[in-house]
């Protein structure tokens, strides 16, 4: 078990409103070959945390404090040029909507090949063979390398994104709600694929989701965020079966179960405030 990523005391706020903290003193760790899920409601700061790890926060936001220790080095202060060398190579990324991250006028094979050429200098027949093997690994017939993104289904596009993100065999994969826009059956396939790739390549995966069902299926460790703060974190079984924080309990109580046995209970935010303070 080797620690791959450790975030310590990460705080993010708008440049124009430095007192309005969007991410507050967030700390957690990720090991190689394991999946850490960040789970929380919309607006809780999940995506900002992931963007900060990749050094992709918008200019309107600033990291007020925090270290981002990746493979033993604090990359929090790195400039764009330094970060570009590890983005795509050591850190792969996938987002919710594959169509917006794919270029509609380039074939998917070309786009998968781009980072192999940039980071590893692959060209010609070697490049072509590597692209074909990547497509195969994500379950797409290699001849689809010549297809354009709009000729693929949503699930296939997300598979292409995965192929792009693992092309250089990164040590870490950051996936921000990668299955949220997909049908459930496709979601199940993609989760299985990511889980297999993670194990086979010994990648650490930082997986963001709002769905505790997905957490249960894919996480080793869980980080629960609420209004910019980590309220609870720990091994998946512990957090799901024995949640310690009232917010985690309340959030779990809202998730309908497939058996229909559990009464649905919306979060009582007013109670939570006093509950948390107590």
């Amino acid at each position, binding site marked *: 078990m080797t620690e791959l990523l450790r975030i310590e005391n990460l705080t993010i706020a708008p440049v124009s409103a430095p007192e309005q903290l969007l991410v507050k003193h967030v700390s957690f760790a990720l090991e190689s070959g394991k999946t850490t899920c960040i789970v929380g409601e919309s607006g809780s700061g999940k995506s900002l945390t992931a963007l900060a790890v990749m050094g992709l926060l918008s200019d309107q936001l600033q990291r007020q404090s925090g270290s981002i220790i990746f493979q033993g080095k604090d990359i929090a202060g790195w400039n764009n040029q330094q970060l570009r060398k590890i983005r795509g190579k050591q850190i792969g990324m996938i987002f919710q909507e594959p169509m917006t991250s794919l270029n509609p006028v380039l074939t998917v094979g070309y786009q998968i090949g781009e980072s192999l050429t940039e980071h590893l200098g692959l060209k010609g027949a070697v490049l072509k063979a590597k692209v074909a093997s990547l497509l195969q690994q994500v379950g797409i017939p290699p001849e689809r390398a010549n297809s354009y993104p709009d000729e693929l289904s949503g699930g296939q596009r997300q598979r292409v994104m995965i192929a792009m993100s693992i092309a250089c065999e990164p040590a870490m994969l950051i996936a921000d709600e990668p299955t949220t826009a997909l*049908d*459930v059956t496709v979601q199940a396939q993609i989760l299985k694929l990511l889980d297999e790739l993670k194990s086979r390549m010994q990648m650490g995966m930082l997986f963001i989701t709002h*769905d505790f*069902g997905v957490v*249960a*299926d894919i996480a080793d460790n869980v980080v629960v965020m609420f209004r910019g703060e980590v309220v609870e974190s720990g091994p998946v079984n512990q957090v799901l079966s024995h949640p310690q924080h009232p917010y985690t309990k309340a959030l779990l109580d809202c998730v309908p179960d*497939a058996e229909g046995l*559990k009464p649905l*209970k*919306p979060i009582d935010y007013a109670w939570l405030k006093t509950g948390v303070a107590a």
Partner: protein
Amino acid sequence: MSMAPDKHILLARGLNKTYSQRSGRFGFGTNKVKALDDVSIALRAGSTLAVVGESGSGKSTLARCLLQLQPLDSGEVMFQGNNLASLSGHALRQERRHLQMIFQDPFASLNPRMKVRDIVGEGLLIHEIGNPREQLEKVSRILERVGLSAGDLNKYPHEFSGGQRQRIGIARALVLEPKVVVCDEPVSALDVSIQAQILLLLKSLQQEMALSYIFISHDLRVVRHIADDIAVMHKGRIVEQGKVAEVYAAPNQDYTRNLLNSIPGRKSLAA
């Protein structure tokens, strides 16, 4: 499934609907999509029938065709002894009062330039129900019932959160005291806590107002909690229907089994 007509408030038989789509990279060809292929469903009075299926399976088309918001190619929709598909003009409008719809996207489905009182009251105007004072009373009462307040009457949709906007959508549908409400993915865009609030609200309104729901969803966990009966759609066809508890316990079709096995956290999150 028994089809005793007296117990069914809405019965649809043999619905067909085909769309023509442009095809090919430059849109020169046309492609026919059979969105509804011989679809029949039966909604029991006072109950909730879920229509589930993957995106593109025809759920929204079914919703629009049931309410005659879109013409069918063929088939009949029986409601209170009338075939809606054969009505038009005034006769259709009269029936439609009793058939309302709640949409997925509370952002897109509310006119941003209208105040809440006008959005919710519009149906009363169209159907000429009550005088202005009575209309305002009805609007205020339903707003309060769905968890908003009279203070919200003069606000615009953008002043509300996603969950509150869905409450406005519910108020707009229910102010006419309908008998059947078709809910097209009403909680799909909402956070899980807001989703739970809206599901509980829909359930209690159903009791109070004796509503029958057609509840369209792709989330089988939500369906288990809200619905009595289920119809599974795949490529425009209903491939399986029955009682929710029975279909979940013993699905007949591989397609349904696959959907059920794909429910996230199915194994690990069991209660």
